[in-house]
C-alpha cells in the first residue's frame, strides 16, 4: 500500500517532468509538422464517427429522460432544449468525448509507444539523432490538445440535433420553442467552460498515455499492463479533475 502510494507520487513527478520537457520541445526546431498533421487525422478525423454516434444518442436520451420527467411533474415537457444544451455543452460533451478518445486513442498511443520501448525502437531513435520526445510525444500531445476540443464542438452540435429530433418528433415540442429553449439562456462563457475543460482533458490523454508507454519495461504482458494502467489513470483523472476544474471555472465566472 505504502509502495503504491510512493509509486503514485513518483509517477506524478515524472509525468509532470515529461510535460515540462514536451512543452520545451514544442518550440524547438525542426517542427514535426507532417507527423503532427498525421496524428491529428488519426486522433481527430478518424474518431469523428464514434464520437458523433455517441453524442447523438446521448442528446436523444437526455431529451427523452428530461422530457418524460418534466411531463410526470408538470404535465408538459418543459425546458427540454435548455436541459439538453446546458448538459451537453458544459458537461457531457467534454467528458464523454474525452472518455471515448481515452479508449480509442489513449490506449493505442500507450500500446504503440510501449511496444516501441520494449523492442528498443525508442533507443534506436536516439542512435539515429532523433529525440523520441520531439518525434513521438510532441505530435501526439499536440494532436490530443487540439483535436479533443474540436471533437467536443462537433459533439455539442450533434448532441443538440439528437435532442432536437426526440424533442420535436417524440415529445412533440414545437421546433421554434425547442430551439429558443436551447439557445436563449446559453451564454458564450458556457461554451468556453466546456471548451477549456476539453483542452485540459486532451492534454491529460496525450501526456498520460505517452508517459505510460515510455515508462514500460519488460515484455508483452507489461505492454498490456501499461495500456490498462494508462486508460484507468486517464479516466480517473478526467472525472476527478472535471469537478475541480468546473468549480474553478465557475468561480472565475466562466460558465
Amino acid at each position, binding site marked *: 500500500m505504502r509502495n503504491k502510494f510512493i509509486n503514485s507520487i513518483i509517477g506524478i513527478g515524472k509525468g509532470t517532468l515529461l510535460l515540462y520537457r514536451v512543452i520545451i520541445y514544442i518550440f524547438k526546431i525542426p517542427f514535426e509538422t507532417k507527423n503532427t498533421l498525421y496524428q491529428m487525422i488519426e486522433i481527430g478525423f478518424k474518431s469523428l464517427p464514434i464520437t458523433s454516434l455517441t453524442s447523438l444518442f446521448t442528446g436523444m436520451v437526455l431529451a427523452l429522460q428530461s422530457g418524460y420527467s418534466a411531463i410526470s411533474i408538470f404535465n408538459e415537457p418543459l425546458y427540454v432544449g435548455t436541459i439538453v444544451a446546458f448538459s451537453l455543452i458544459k458537461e457531457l460533451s467534454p467528458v464523454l468525448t474525452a472518455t471515448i478518445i481515452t479508449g480509442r486513442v489513449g490506449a493505442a498511443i500507450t500500446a504503440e509507444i510501449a511496444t516501441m520501448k520494449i523492442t*528498443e525502437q525508442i533507443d*534506436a531513435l536516439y542512435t539515429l*539523432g532523433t529525440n523520441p520526445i520531439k518525434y513521438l510525444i510532441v505530435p501526439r500531445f499536440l494532436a490530443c490538445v487540439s483535436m479533443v476540443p474540436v471533437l467536443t464542438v462537433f459533439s455539442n452540435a450533434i448532441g443538440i440535433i439528437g435532442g432536437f429530433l426526440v424533442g420535436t418528433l417524440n415529445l412533440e415540442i414545437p421546433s421554434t420553442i425547442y430551439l429558443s429553449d436551447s439557445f436563449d439562456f446559453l451564454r458564450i462563457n458556457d461554451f468556453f467552460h466546456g471548451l477549456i475543460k476539453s483542452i485540459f482533458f486532451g492534454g491529460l490523454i496525450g501526456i498520460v498515455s505517452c508517459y505510460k508507454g515510455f515508462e514500460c519495461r519488460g515484455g508483452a504482458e507489461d505492454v498490456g499492463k501499461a495500456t490498462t494502467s494508462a486508460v484507468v489513470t486517464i479516466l480517473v483523472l478526467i472525472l476527478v479533475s472535471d469537478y475541480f476544474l468546473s468549480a474553478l471555472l465557475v468561480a472565475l465566472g466562466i460558465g
Partner: protein
Amino acid sequence: MIEIIDLHKSFNNNKVLKGINLKIYDGETLTIIGCSGCGKTVLLKHIIGLILPDKGKVIINGVDITTLNEDALHLQQQNFGYLFQGAALFDSLTAEENVAFGLRNSNLKQQDIYRRTKWCLSQVGLSDVEKLKPAELSGGMKKRIALARAIARNPKYILYDEPTTGLDPIMADAINDLIIHLQKTLNVTSVIVTHDMKSAYKVSNRIAMLYDGKIIGIGTPDEIKNSDNPYIQQFVSGLSQGPIQLKIHEY
C-alpha cells in the same frame, strides 16, 4: 578513441558492471564476449550514452559523454551507428524509410538521401526489398536492413549487439563477412558484443571477456584462444564444467 574508466552500473541492487576499464583504439574491431546476462549490452549502451553509469567515465575522442547535456550528447551520438540485437526497425516504415530515417534531419536533398539509401542497401546486399515493411522480412534481412540504417549517416563507430544471434550458420557467416567488408570499406571503429566465438574469432582484432562485471582478459583472437585463464578457457571452449557455474542445479 573510446576510453572507459572505472564504469559501475546497478539495476535494483543488482550490480551489473563493477569497474570496467577498457580502451578501444581507432580503426580496430573489438569484440566483447561473455555469458548471457553478464552485462555486455549494458556496457555497449553506456558507450553510446543510452544508459548513464552510476560511477565512472566514458570518454569519446577526449569528451566524457556521461557529463554532457541532452543536446551535446545527441551531437556525440551522431558519430555512432548501432545495430540492435532485435534489429529494432521501425514497424510503421518500409525498409527504405528505415534506412533513410537517420538522414531526415540532415542537410541532404531528397535525391541525395535516396541515393545514399540505395548505396547503403547495396552494401548489405539488399536491393529489392525497399518497399517492404519489417513484418515482411526474415530475421537475417532485418539485421541487414538495420546494418544499412546504422551505416547511413557515415558513422565513425559502429556498435553491434549480438549481430549473428538467432541466424542460421550461413546467414551468420554472411553477416560476419559484411562486418569485415564494412570495416575495410568504411574504416570505422567497431565494437561487437557476442557469445558466438566463431564470429568473434573471424571479425575481431582484439577480444575482451566480461565476467562478473569486470573485464577479465583482453587480447588478440589467438591470445584469447590460448589463454591460461580458466574462465576464458571454459567460455571459449564452450564447456558447462569449470569455474563459471551455471545456476541450473538450483531448480
